[in-house]
């Protein structure tokens, strides 16, 4: 899936990845996709919970090259 914006949260630990994602998503319009890269293993569950509770869709959650990649579609 193509993304409209990318956020590199590598090296940042809880709760920074979701806080930064929320801030970036605020400036995006509905339907746009944000690609987040994180190294914090806790971020996998954090983004799952974030999507469930904020009405944004977690289109993809995968691990690649030692990092975690998330595609979040703004609801």
């Amino acid at each position: 899936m193509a993304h409209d914006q990318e956020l590199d949260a590598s090296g940042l630990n809880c709760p920074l990845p979701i806080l930064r994602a929320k801030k970036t998503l605020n400036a995006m319009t509905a339907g746009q996709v944000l690609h987040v890269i994180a190294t914090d293993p806790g971020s996998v569950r954090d983004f799952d919970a974030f999507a469930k509770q904020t009405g944004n869709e977690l289109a993809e959650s995968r691990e690649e090259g030692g990092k975690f990649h998330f595609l979040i579609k703004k609801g």
Partner: protein
Amino acid sequence: MAPKKLAIIATKGSLDWAYPPFILASTAAALGYEVQVFFTFYGLQLLKKDPNLKVTPLGNPGMPMPGGMERFMPVMLTALPFMQRLMTVMMKAKMKKKGVASIEELRALCQEAEVKFIACQMTVDLFDMDADAFIPGIEFAGAAAFFEFAGSSDICLYI
């Protein structure tokens, strides 16, 4: 659907006690909660422009130390003059190394996420604190005023 409400009462002013209120408040705000934090007693230290927070192993038997030192560190040693400063420096270095946000950064993120910070007027008066010593953008109020929000909150935490 109305947003859920989180009320936090922050009463401690050391570095280790500063993280829970700010992390919980900022995370809840990121998840769409309406959050208000009431800072009272030593919690007011968290609202200072220059917090300069410390942490000490003295009286903190649960505090882990590098190299498993806590297993044989006598309590008297933790009371030595330099220990608090040393532990604070080491703790801050560890936080930075692990990519954990500083208190100032978490606090700023909270305010950006529109978390409301309320300073307990009574404590400010009690300890003769100067309103200028605190960060801008905070309110001063008493417990009764805070109960308006806390009373209807979904989650209320005492830290």
